[in-house]
Protein backbone atom coordinates (compact mmCIF):
# COMPACT_ATOMS: atom_id res chain seq x y z
CA UNK A 1 0.00 0.00 0.00
CA UNK A 2 1.47 3.37 -0.97
CA UNK A 3 0.95 6.49 1.12
CA UNK A 4 -1.97 7.75 -0.94
CA UNK A 5 -3.77 4.43 -0.58
CA UNK A 6 -3.02 4.59 3.14
CA UNK A 7 -4.50 8.10 3.27
CA UNK A 8 -7.71 6.73 1.74
CA UNK A 9 -7.80 3.75 4.14
CA UNK A 10 -7.11 5.83 7.25
CA UNK A 11 -9.58 8.59 6.44
CA UNK A 12 -12.30 6.12 5.38
CA UNK A 13 -11.92 4.36 8.68
CA UNK A 14 -12.05 7.62 10.64
CA UNK A 15 -15.07 8.88 8.68
CA UNK A 16 -16.90 5.85 10.04
CA UNK A 17 -15.71 6.45 13.60
CA UNK A 18 -15.86 10.23 13.92
CA UNK A 19 -18.93 12.07 12.62
CA UNK A 20 -17.05 15.38 12.84
CA UNK A 21 -14.78 14.48 9.94
CA UNK A 22 -15.55 16.07 6.53
CA UNK A 23 -13.30 15.41 3.54
CA UNK A 24 -12.88 18.06 0.83
CA UNK A 25 -11.03 16.88 -2.28
CA UNK A 26 -9.56 19.48 -4.62
CA UNK A 27 -10.58 17.34 -7.58
CA UNK A 28 -7.82 14.81 -6.87
CA UNK A 29 -8.05 11.44 -5.15
CA UNK A 30 -11.65 11.16 -6.34
CA UNK A 31 -11.22 7.65 -7.71
CA UNK A 32 -9.41 6.50 -4.57
CA UNK A 33 -12.26 7.71 -2.38
CA UNK A 34 -15.01 6.33 -4.65
CA UNK A 35 -16.39 4.09 -1.89
CA UNK A 36 -16.34 6.88 0.69
CA UNK A 37 -18.51 9.12 -1.52
CA UNK A 38 -21.22 6.48 -1.42
CA UNK A 39 -20.78 5.60 2.25
CA UNK A 40 -20.65 9.14 3.66
CA UNK A 41 -22.92 11.35 1.54
CA UNK A 42 -22.34 15.04 2.21
CA UNK A 43 -19.20 14.36 4.23
CA UNK A 44 -16.99 13.52 1.27
CA UNK A 45 -17.05 16.33 -1.26
CA UNK A 46 -15.21 16.86 -4.51
CA UNK A 47 -15.12 20.58 -3.87
CA UNK A 48 -13.49 21.63 -7.15
CA UNK A 49 -10.36 23.56 -8.07
CA UNK A 50 -10.76 26.69 -5.95
CA UNK A 51 -8.32 26.40 -3.11
CA UNK A 52 -8.70 29.84 -1.52
CA UNK A 53 -12.45 29.62 -1.00
CA UNK A 54 -12.10 25.96 -0.06
CA UNK A 55 -9.84 26.74 2.88
CA UNK A 56 -12.20 29.48 4.10
CA UNK A 57 -15.17 27.14 3.53
CA UNK A 58 -13.33 24.50 5.57
CA UNK A 59 -12.89 27.05 8.36
CA UNK A 60 -16.64 27.58 8.34
CA UNK A 61 -17.12 23.83 8.81
CA UNK A 62 -14.59 23.88 11.64
CA UNK A 63 -16.46 26.77 13.24
CA UNK A 64 -19.55 24.53 13.31
CA UNK A 65 -17.69 21.75 15.11
CA UNK A 66 -16.54 19.67 12.15
CA UNK A 67 -12.96 18.66 11.41
CA UNK A 68 -12.34 19.39 7.75
CA UNK A 69 -9.68 17.47 5.83
CA UNK A 70 -8.63 19.28 2.65
CA UNK A 71 -6.59 17.39 0.08
CA UNK A 72 -4.76 18.68 -2.96
CA UNK A 73 -1.28 18.99 -4.43
CA UNK A 74 1.21 20.79 -2.17
CA UNK A 75 1.61 24.13 -4.02
CA UNK A 76 -2.14 24.55 -4.35
CA UNK A 77 -2.83 23.82 -0.69
CA UNK A 78 0.00 25.81 0.81
CA UNK A 79 1.05 28.50 -1.65
CA UNK A 80 -2.24 29.27 -3.41
CA UNK A 81 -4.27 29.38 -0.20
CA UNK A 82 -1.58 30.50 2.23
CA UNK A 83 -3.36 33.59 3.54
CA UNK A 84 -6.53 31.57 4.14
CA UNK A 85 -4.50 29.05 6.13
CA UNK A 86 -2.88 31.85 8.11
CA UNK A 87 -6.01 33.84 8.93
CA UNK A 88 -8.89 31.37 8.86
CA UNK A 89 -7.14 28.51 10.65
CA UNK A 90 -4.00 29.93 12.29
CA UNK A 91 -5.35 33.22 13.61
CA UNK A 92 -8.77 31.79 14.45
CA UNK A 93 -7.23 28.68 16.06
CA UNK A 94 -9.60 26.28 14.31
CA UNK A 95 -8.96 22.55 13.86
CA UNK A 96 -8.44 21.17 10.37
CA UNK A 97 -6.16 18.93 8.33
CA UNK A 98 -4.41 19.88 5.11
CA UNK A 99 -3.10 16.81 3.38
CA UNK A 100 -0.84 17.43 0.42
CA UNK A 101 0.78 15.16 -2.11
CA UNK A 102 3.67 15.98 -4.38
CA UNK A 103 6.10 17.08 -1.67
CA UNK A 104 9.21 18.77 -3.05
CA UNK A 105 9.36 17.18 -6.49
CA UNK A 106 7.39 13.92 -6.59
CA UNK A 107 5.78 15.32 -9.75
CA UNK A 108 9.25 15.78 -11.22
CA UNK A 109 8.19 15.66 -14.85
CA UNK A 110 5.39 18.19 -14.39
CA UNK A 111 7.89 20.93 -13.67
CA UNK A 112 8.26 23.74 -11.17
CA UNK A 113 4.57 24.69 -10.98
CA UNK A 114 3.99 21.35 -9.27
CA UNK A 115 7.11 21.33 -7.09
CA UNK A 116 6.82 22.55 -3.51
CA UNK A 117 10.10 22.49 -1.59
CA UNK A 118 8.97 25.67 0.24
CA UNK A 119 5.85 24.28 1.91
CA UNK A 120 7.40 23.43 5.28
CA UNK A 121 9.15 26.81 5.56
CA UNK A 122 5.91 28.59 4.71
CA UNK A 123 3.82 26.63 7.16
CA UNK A 124 6.39 27.39 9.87
CA UNK A 125 5.34 31.04 9.48
CA UNK A 126 1.82 30.32 10.79
CA UNK A 127 1.86 30.32 14.60
CA UNK A 128 0.12 27.20 15.91
CA UNK A 129 0.25 25.35 12.58
CA UNK A 130 1.43 21.81 13.18
CA UNK A 131 3.52 20.17 10.45
CA UNK A 132 3.66 16.40 10.05
CA UNK A 133 5.90 14.72 7.47
CA UNK A 134 5.44 10.97 7.70
CA UNK A 135 8.20 8.81 6.26
CA UNK A 136 5.97 6.01 5.02
CA UNK A 137 2.32 4.86 4.96
CA UNK A 138 2.48 3.21 8.38
CA UNK A 139 3.79 6.40 9.95
CA UNK A 140 1.07 8.44 8.23
CA UNK A 141 -1.62 6.20 9.67
CA UNK A 142 -0.28 6.45 13.21
CA UNK A 143 0.41 10.18 13.11
CA UNK A 144 -2.87 11.13 11.46
CA UNK A 145 -4.94 9.15 13.96
CA UNK A 146 -3.03 10.72 16.82
CA UNK A 147 -3.22 14.32 15.68
CA UNK A 148 -6.11 14.99 13.27
CA UNK A 149 -8.39 16.56 15.84
CA UNK A 150 -5.86 18.56 17.82
CA UNK A 151 -5.58 21.79 15.83
CA UNK A 152 -4.63 23.01 12.38
CA UNK A 153 -2.23 20.42 10.98
CA UNK A 154 -0.39 20.11 7.68
CA UNK A 155 0.40 16.59 6.51
CA UNK A 156 3.11 16.38 3.86
CA UNK A 157 2.81 13.12 1.93
CA UNK A 158 5.60 11.92 -0.32
CA UNK A 159 5.67 8.97 -2.71
CA UNK A 160 9.10 8.09 -1.37
CA UNK A 161 8.85 5.81 1.66
CA UNK A 162 11.45 4.39 4.00
CA UNK A 163 11.28 0.73 5.04
CA UNK A 164 12.37 1.03 8.67
CA UNK A 165 10.30 -0.21 11.58
CA UNK A 166 9.86 1.72 14.78
CA UNK A 167 6.96 3.48 16.43
CA UNK A 168 6.31 7.14 15.75
CA UNK A 169 4.56 9.54 18.06
CA UNK A 170 3.24 13.02 17.28
CA UNK A 171 5.56 15.74 18.53
CA UNK A 172 8.43 13.37 19.36
CA UNK A 173 11.63 12.60 17.50
CA UNK A 174 12.71 8.96 17.46
CA UNK A 175 16.23 8.08 18.50
CA UNK A 176 17.17 5.57 15.81
CA UNK A 177 20.69 5.00 17.04
CA UNK A 178 23.34 6.76 19.04
CA UNK A 179 26.96 7.61 18.26
CA UNK A 180 29.58 10.12 19.25
CA UNK A 181 30.94 12.01 16.25
CA UNK A 182 27.84 13.87 15.07
CA UNK A 183 24.06 13.99 15.28
CA UNK A 184 22.08 13.50 12.11
CA UNK A 185 18.63 15.07 12.25
CA UNK A 186 16.67 13.42 9.46
CA UNK A 187 13.16 14.33 8.39
CA UNK A 188 10.47 12.09 6.96
CA UNK A 189 11.30 9.76 4.08
CA UNK A 190 15.03 10.59 4.06
CA UNK A 191 15.61 8.12 6.89
CA UNK A 192 16.36 5.32 4.41
CA UNK A 193 19.25 7.00 2.54
CA UNK A 194 20.61 8.40 5.80
CA UNK A 195 20.82 4.95 7.38
CA UNK A 196 22.46 3.58 4.24
CA UNK A 197 24.94 6.45 4.16
CA UNK A 198 25.89 6.21 7.84
CA UNK A 199 25.78 2.44 8.44
CA UNK A 200 29.46 2.27 9.40
CA UNK A 201 29.73 5.75 10.91
CA UNK A 202 29.75 6.57 14.62
CA UNK A 203 26.81 9.01 14.56
CA UNK A 204 23.51 9.55 16.33
CA UNK A 205 20.46 9.45 14.09
CA UNK A 206 17.27 11.25 15.15
CA UNK A 207 14.21 10.78 12.97
CA UNK A 208 11.68 13.62 12.85
CA UNK A 209 8.17 13.11 11.49
CA UNK A 210 6.66 16.05 13.36
CA UNK A 211 8.40 19.22 12.17
CA UNK A 212 6.22 21.64 14.14
CA UNK A 213 6.13 21.67 17.07
CA UNK A 214 9.74 20.59 16.76
CA UNK A 215 11.03 18.25 19.48
CA UNK A 216 13.88 20.43 20.77
CA UNK A 217 14.29 18.40 23.91
CA UNK A 218 15.37 15.17 22.21
CA UNK A 219 17.83 17.05 20.03
CA UNK A 220 19.34 18.92 22.98
CA UNK A 221 19.74 15.67 24.86
CA UNK A 222 21.52 13.87 22.01
CA UNK A 223 23.89 16.46 20.66
CA UNK A 224 27.50 17.32 21.20
CA UNK A 225 29.25 19.39 18.59
CA UNK A 226 28.16 18.70 15.03
CA UNK A 227 24.58 18.55 13.81
CA UNK A 228 23.84 17.44 10.24
CA UNK A 229 20.28 18.13 9.13
CA UNK A 230 18.89 16.09 6.25
CA UNK A 231 15.71 17.79 5.08
CA UNK A 232 14.04 16.81 1.79
CA UNK A 233 12.74 20.37 1.29
CA UNK A 234 14.45 23.77 1.10
CA UNK A 235 17.87 23.74 2.75
CA UNK A 236 17.87 25.54 6.06
CA UNK A 237 14.17 25.07 6.79
CA UNK A 238 14.91 23.42 10.14
CA UNK A 239 17.98 25.52 10.98
CA UNK A 240 16.03 27.92 13.19
CA UNK A 241 14.58 25.06 15.21
CA UNK A 242 17.97 23.37 15.62
CA UNK A 243 19.47 26.66 16.66
CA UNK A 244 16.71 27.26 19.21
CA UNK A 245 17.11 23.72 20.58
CA UNK A 246 20.86 24.12 21.01
CA UNK A 247 21.11 27.77 21.98
CA UNK A 248 23.11 26.92 25.07
CA UNK A 249 25.65 24.83 23.18
CA UNK A 250 28.42 25.54 20.74
CA UNK A 251 27.33 23.71 17.61
CA UNK A 252 28.40 23.28 14.02
CA UNK A 253 25.33 23.01 11.76
CA UNK A 254 25.35 21.48 8.30
CA UNK A 255 22.13 21.48 6.28
CA UNK A 256 21.52 19.01 3.46
CA UNK A 257 18.36 19.79 1.55
CA UNK A 258 16.92 21.13 -1.66
CA UNK A 259 18.74 24.20 -3.01
CA UNK A 260 16.71 27.42 -3.20
CA UNK A 261 16.45 27.59 -6.96
CA UNK A 262 13.90 26.55 -9.56
CA UNK A 263 14.68 22.95 -10.48
CA UNK A 264 13.87 23.24 -14.16
CA UNK A 265 14.86 19.71 -15.11
CA UNK A 266 12.14 17.08 -15.49
CA UNK A 267 12.82 13.34 -15.18
CA UNK A 268 11.84 11.27 -12.15
CA UNK A 269 11.84 11.82 -8.38
CA UNK A 270 15.07 9.81 -8.06
CA UNK A 271 16.80 12.07 -10.60
CA UNK A 272 16.07 15.12 -8.47
CA UNK A 273 17.05 13.39 -5.23
CA UNK A 274 20.38 12.51 -6.83
CA UNK A 275 20.87 16.01 -8.24
CA UNK A 276 20.23 17.52 -4.80
CA UNK A 277 22.53 15.04 -3.07
CA UNK A 278 19.65 13.59 -1.08
CA UNK A 279 20.19 9.98 -2.19
CA UNK A 280 22.38 7.59 -0.18
CA UNK A 281 25.50 8.22 -2.27
CA UNK A 282 25.15 11.98 -2.12
CA UNK A 283 24.55 11.97 1.62
CA UNK A 284 27.46 9.56 2.14
CA UNK A 285 29.80 11.93 0.33
CA UNK A 286 28.56 14.97 2.21
CA UNK A 287 28.58 13.40 5.67
CA UNK A 288 32.01 11.81 5.17
CA UNK A 289 33.42 15.21 4.25
CA UNK A 290 31.89 16.77 7.34
CA UNK A 291 33.35 14.09 9.60
CA UNK A 292 36.87 14.27 8.14
Amino acid at each position, binding site marked *: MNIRQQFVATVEDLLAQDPRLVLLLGDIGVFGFRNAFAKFPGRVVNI*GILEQATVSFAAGLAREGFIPVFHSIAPFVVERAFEQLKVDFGYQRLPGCFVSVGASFDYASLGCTHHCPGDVALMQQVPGMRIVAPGNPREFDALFRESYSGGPTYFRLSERAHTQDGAVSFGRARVVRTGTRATVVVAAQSLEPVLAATADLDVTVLHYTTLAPFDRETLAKHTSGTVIVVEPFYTGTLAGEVSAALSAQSTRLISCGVPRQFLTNYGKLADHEQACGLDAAGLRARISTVLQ
Partner: protein
Amino acid sequence: MNEAETLRELRRRIILAATTAREGHIASAFSILDLLWVLYGRVLRFKADQPKWEGRDRFILSKGHASLGLYAVLAHHGFFPFEELQTFAGFTSRLGGHPDSNKVPGVEASTGSLGHGLPMAAGIAYGLKLKQSTARVFCVAGDGEANEGAIWEAALLGAHHRLDNLCCLLDYNHSGDRALLTGDLAAKFAAFGWHTAAVDGHDHAEIFQAVTQPSDGRPRMIVATTIKGKGCPPMEGNPAWHHKAPTPDELDGILAQLT
Protein backbone atom coordinates in the same frame (compact mmCIF):
# COMPACT_ATOMS: atom_id res chain seq x y z
CA MET B 1 -35.57 57.36 21.96
CA ASN B 2 -37.19 56.53 18.66
CA GLU B 3 -35.45 54.48 15.99
CA ALA B 4 -33.93 57.45 14.16
CA GLU B 5 -32.64 58.91 17.42
CA THR B 6 -31.15 55.57 18.45
CA LEU B 7 -29.35 55.25 15.14
CA ARG B 8 -28.02 58.79 15.48
CA GLU B 9 -26.79 57.85 18.96
CA LEU B 10 -25.00 54.79 17.52
CA ARG B 11 -23.34 57.03 14.94
CA ARG B 12 -22.32 59.42 17.68
CA ARG B 13 -20.80 56.54 19.70
CA ILE B 14 -18.90 55.33 16.64
CA ILE B 15 -17.47 58.78 15.99
CA LEU B 16 -16.50 59.20 19.63
CA ALA B 17 -14.77 55.79 19.66
CA ALA B 18 -12.82 56.60 16.50
CA THR B 19 -11.92 60.04 17.76
CA THR B 20 -10.52 58.61 20.98
CA ALA B 21 -8.59 55.97 19.04
CA ARG B 22 -7.57 58.60 16.46
CA GLU B 23 -8.50 56.12 13.72
CA GLY B 24 -11.28 53.93 12.39
CA HIS B 25 -13.25 53.25 9.22
CA ILE B 26 -16.20 55.46 10.18
CA ALA B 27 -17.60 55.90 6.68
CA SER B 28 -17.75 52.13 6.06
CA ALA B 29 -19.34 51.56 9.45
CA PHE B 30 -22.04 54.09 8.51
CA SER B 31 -22.74 52.53 5.13
CA ILE B 32 -23.62 49.16 6.74
CA LEU B 33 -25.33 50.50 9.86
CA ASP B 34 -28.89 50.33 8.52
CA LEU B 35 -28.30 46.79 7.20
CA LEU B 36 -27.08 45.61 10.61
CA TRP B 37 -29.83 47.54 12.37
CA VAL B 38 -32.52 45.64 10.47
CA LEU B 39 -30.75 42.28 10.73
CA TYR B 40 -30.10 42.40 14.48
CA GLY B 41 -33.32 44.23 15.31
CA ARG B 42 -35.84 42.24 13.30
CA VAL B 43 -34.34 39.20 11.59
CA LEU B 44 -31.53 37.37 13.40
CA ARG B 45 -32.29 34.89 16.18
CA PHE B 46 -29.70 35.24 18.94
CA LYS B 47 -29.21 35.38 22.70
CA ALA B 48 -26.80 38.15 23.63
CA ASP B 49 -26.06 36.52 26.99
CA GLN B 50 -25.28 33.20 25.23
CA PRO B 51 -23.39 34.24 22.11
CA LYS B 52 -22.61 30.60 21.23
CA TRP B 53 -26.23 29.43 21.60
CA GLU B 54 -26.50 26.59 19.06
CA GLY B 55 -29.82 27.77 17.64
CA ARG B 56 -28.58 31.25 16.76
CA ASP B 57 -28.46 32.62 13.25
CA ARG B 58 -24.86 33.28 12.29
CA PHE B 59 -23.69 36.69 11.12
CA ILE B 60 -20.35 37.25 9.37
CA LEU B 61 -18.98 40.69 8.61
CA SER B 62 -16.89 39.83 5.57
CA LYS B 63 -15.77 43.44 5.12
CA GLY B 64 -14.16 43.46 8.55
CA HIS B 65 -12.92 47.05 8.37
CA ALA B 66 -16.48 48.20 9.07
CA SER B 67 -16.07 46.68 12.54
CA LEU B 68 -17.19 49.83 14.36
CA GLY B 69 -20.66 49.45 12.84
CA LEU B 70 -20.88 45.87 14.08
CA TYR B 71 -19.55 46.73 17.55
CA ALA B 72 -22.11 49.50 17.98
CA VAL B 73 -25.00 47.20 17.04
CA LEU B 74 -23.69 44.33 19.20
CA ALA B 75 -23.33 46.70 22.15
CA HIS B 76 -26.83 48.07 21.53
CA HIS B 77 -28.16 44.50 21.79
CA GLY B 78 -26.21 43.76 24.96
CA PHE B 79 -23.34 41.55 23.77
CA PHE B 80 -20.98 43.83 25.73
CA PRO B 81 -21.28 47.18 27.49
CA PHE B 82 -21.50 50.31 25.39
CA GLU B 83 -18.64 51.87 27.35
CA GLU B 84 -16.30 49.28 25.83
CA LEU B 85 -16.60 51.05 22.47
CA GLN B 86 -14.44 53.79 23.91
CA THR B 87 -11.56 51.28 24.18
CA PHE B 88 -11.68 50.75 20.40
CA ALA B 89 -8.25 49.94 18.90
CA GLY B 90 -6.51 50.31 22.26
CA PHE B 91 -3.54 48.04 22.93
CA THR B 92 -5.46 45.65 25.20
CA SER B 93 -8.96 46.26 23.82
CA ARG B 94 -11.12 43.39 22.59
CA LEU B 95 -12.40 45.69 19.87
CA GLY B 96 -9.92 46.07 17.04
CA GLY B 97 -9.94 47.70 13.65
CA HIS B 98 -11.09 44.31 12.38
CA PRO B 99 -13.22 41.93 14.47
CA ASP B 100 -11.59 38.99 16.26
CA SER B 101 -13.79 35.93 16.77
CA ASN B 102 -11.68 34.78 19.69
CA LYS B 103 -12.18 38.06 21.54
CA VAL B 104 -15.54 39.63 20.77
CA PRO B 105 -18.80 37.98 21.90
CA GLY B 106 -21.08 37.60 18.90
CA VAL B 107 -18.33 37.72 16.28
CA GLU B 108 -18.32 34.46 14.30
CA ALA B 109 -15.30 35.08 12.08
CA SER B 110 -12.06 37.01 12.30
CA THR B 111 -12.13 39.03 9.13
CA GLY B 112 -10.05 41.84 7.74
CA SER B 113 -8.48 40.22 4.72
CA LEU B 114 -11.11 40.76 2.06
CA GLY B 115 -12.68 37.72 0.44
CA HIS B 116 -12.50 35.37 3.43
CA GLY B 117 -15.84 35.97 5.12
CA LEU B 118 -18.24 34.93 2.37
CA PRO B 119 -16.60 31.55 1.67
CA MET B 120 -16.39 30.95 5.42
CA ALA B 121 -20.08 31.81 5.69
CA ALA B 122 -20.72 29.26 2.93
CA GLY B 123 -18.83 26.63 4.93
CA ILE B 124 -20.88 27.47 8.01
CA ALA B 125 -24.06 27.18 5.96
CA TYR B 126 -22.93 23.79 4.64
CA GLY B 127 -22.04 22.66 8.16
CA LEU B 128 -25.46 23.73 9.48
CA LYS B 129 -27.11 21.65 6.76
CA LEU B 130 -24.99 18.64 7.72
CA LYS B 131 -26.18 19.12 11.31
CA GLN B 132 -29.77 19.48 10.04
CA SER B 133 -29.96 22.81 11.83
CA THR B 134 -32.55 25.39 10.83
CA ALA B 135 -30.23 28.24 11.76
CA ARG B 136 -29.42 30.67 8.94
CA VAL B 137 -26.25 32.46 7.92
CA PHE B 138 -26.14 36.14 7.04
CA CYS B 139 -23.11 37.92 5.69
CA VAL B 140 -22.23 41.49 4.73
CA ALA B 141 -19.63 41.90 2.00
CA GLY B 142 -18.59 44.99 0.05
CA ASP B 143 -18.35 46.00 -3.58
CA GLY B 144 -14.62 46.63 -3.25
CA GLU B 145 -14.37 43.19 -1.70
CA ALA B 146 -16.09 41.76 -4.78
CA ASN B 147 -12.82 42.40 -6.63
CA GLU B 148 -11.43 39.36 -4.82
CA GLY B 149 -11.51 36.07 -6.69
CA ALA B 150 -12.48 34.17 -3.54
CA ILE B 151 -15.86 35.98 -3.54
CA TRP B 152 -16.61 34.47 -6.94
CA GLU B 153 -15.28 31.09 -5.86
CA ALA B 154 -17.73 31.32 -2.96
CA ALA B 155 -20.47 32.28 -5.42
CA LEU B 156 -19.81 29.02 -7.28
CA LEU B 157 -19.79 26.98 -4.07
CA GLY B 158 -22.97 28.57 -2.71
CA ALA B 159 -24.92 27.91 -5.90
CA HIS B 160 -23.58 24.39 -6.49
CA HIS B 161 -24.33 23.24 -2.94
CA ARG B 162 -27.73 25.03 -2.96
CA LEU B 163 -27.02 26.88 0.27
CA ASP B 164 -30.48 28.35 0.67
CA ASN B 165 -29.69 29.02 4.33
CA LEU B 166 -27.10 31.60 3.27
CA CYS B 167 -28.02 35.22 2.64
CA CYS B 168 -25.41 37.83 1.75
CA LEU B 169 -26.01 41.55 1.75
CA LEU B 170 -23.62 43.35 -0.53
CA ASP B 171 -22.93 46.83 0.73
CA TYR B 172 -22.64 48.60 -2.63
CA ASN B 173 -21.19 51.94 -1.53
CA HIS B 174 -19.16 52.26 -4.73
CA SER B 175 -15.90 52.61 -2.84
CA GLY B 176 -14.32 50.23 -5.35
CA ASP B 177 -15.26 52.30 -8.39
CA ARG B 178 -12.11 54.39 -8.32
CA ALA B 179 -10.07 51.23 -8.92
CA LEU B 180 -12.18 48.67 -10.75
CA LEU B 181 -15.76 48.95 -11.89
CA THR B 182 -17.74 45.93 -10.68
CA GLY B 183 -20.85 46.84 -12.66
CA ASP B 184 -24.22 45.23 -12.06
CA LEU B 185 -23.41 42.91 -9.19
CA ALA B 186 -26.99 41.63 -8.90
CA ALA B 187 -26.87 40.49 -12.54
CA LYS B 188 -23.47 38.89 -12.00
CA PHE B 189 -24.56 36.90 -8.93
CA ALA B 190 -27.78 35.94 -10.74
CA ALA B 191 -25.63 34.57 -13.55
CA PHE B 192 -23.72 32.56 -10.93
CA GLY B 193 -27.00 30.98 -9.82
CA TRP B 194 -27.95 33.11 -6.83
CA HIS B 195 -31.37 34.50 -6.02
CA THR B 196 -30.78 38.24 -6.13
CA ALA B 197 -32.56 41.39 -5.11
CA ALA B 198 -31.61 45.05 -5.22
CA VAL B 199 -32.54 47.40 -2.40
CA ASP B 200 -31.85 50.84 -1.01
CA GLY B 201 -29.44 49.90 1.78
CA HIS B 202 -30.74 52.69 4.00
CA ASP B 203 -34.46 51.87 3.58
CA HIS B 204 -35.37 49.61 6.49
CA ALA B 205 -38.61 48.36 4.97
CA GLU B 206 -36.92 47.39 1.71
CA ILE B 207 -34.07 45.63 3.52
CA PHE B 208 -36.48 43.73 5.75
CA GLN B 209 -38.68 42.67 2.86
CA ALA B 210 -35.71 41.38 0.84
CA VAL B 211 -34.04 39.56 3.72
CA THR B 212 -37.20 37.80 4.87
CA GLN B 213 -38.32 36.64 1.44
CA PRO B 214 -38.71 32.87 1.46
CA SER B 215 -35.87 31.07 -0.21
CA ASP B 216 -36.37 29.30 -3.52
CA GLY B 217 -33.55 26.81 -2.93
CA ARG B 218 -30.73 29.12 -4.00
CA PRO B 219 -28.44 31.23 -1.81
CA ARG B 220 -29.48 34.86 -1.74
CA MET B 221 -27.55 37.98 -2.65
CA ILE B 222 -29.13 41.28 -1.76
CA VAL B 223 -27.31 44.12 -3.43
CA ALA B 224 -27.85 47.11 -1.17
CA THR B 225 -27.05 50.49 -2.63
CA THR B 226 -25.55 52.53 0.16
CA ILE B 227 -23.81 55.80 0.79
CA LYS B 228 -20.42 55.65 2.41
CA GLY B 229 -20.53 57.85 5.49
CA LYS B 230 -24.37 57.87 5.47
CA GLY B 231 -25.77 60.01 8.25
CA CYS B 232 -22.82 62.39 8.45
CA PRO B 233 -23.02 64.80 5.50
CA PRO B 234 -19.36 65.87 5.43
CA MET B 235 -18.34 62.21 5.15
CA GLU B 236 -21.00 61.08 2.69
CA GLY B 237 -19.32 59.85 -0.47
CA ASN B 238 -16.10 61.62 0.52
CA PRO B 239 -13.07 59.33 0.05
CA ALA B 240 -10.99 61.53 2.37
CA TRP B 241 -12.94 59.98 5.26
CA HIS B 242 -12.30 56.32 4.30
CA HIS B 243 -9.91 55.69 7.19
CA LYS B 244 -9.76 58.82 9.24
CA ALA B 245 -11.10 60.07 12.54
CA PRO B 246 -12.08 63.62 13.38
CA THR B 247 -9.54 65.66 15.29
CA PRO B 248 -10.72 66.94 18.69
CA ASP B 249 -11.17 70.33 17.05
CA GLU B 250 -13.38 68.88 14.30
CA LEU B 251 -15.40 66.68 16.64
CA ASP B 252 -18.16 69.05 17.76
CA GLY B 253 -18.76 70.26 14.22
CA ILE B 254 -19.02 66.66 12.95
CA LEU B 255 -21.34 65.56 15.75
CA ALA B 256 -23.59 68.57 15.18
CA GLN B 257 -24.12 67.53 11.57
CA LEU B 258 -25.20 63.92 12.28
CA THR B 259 -28.59 63.24 10.76
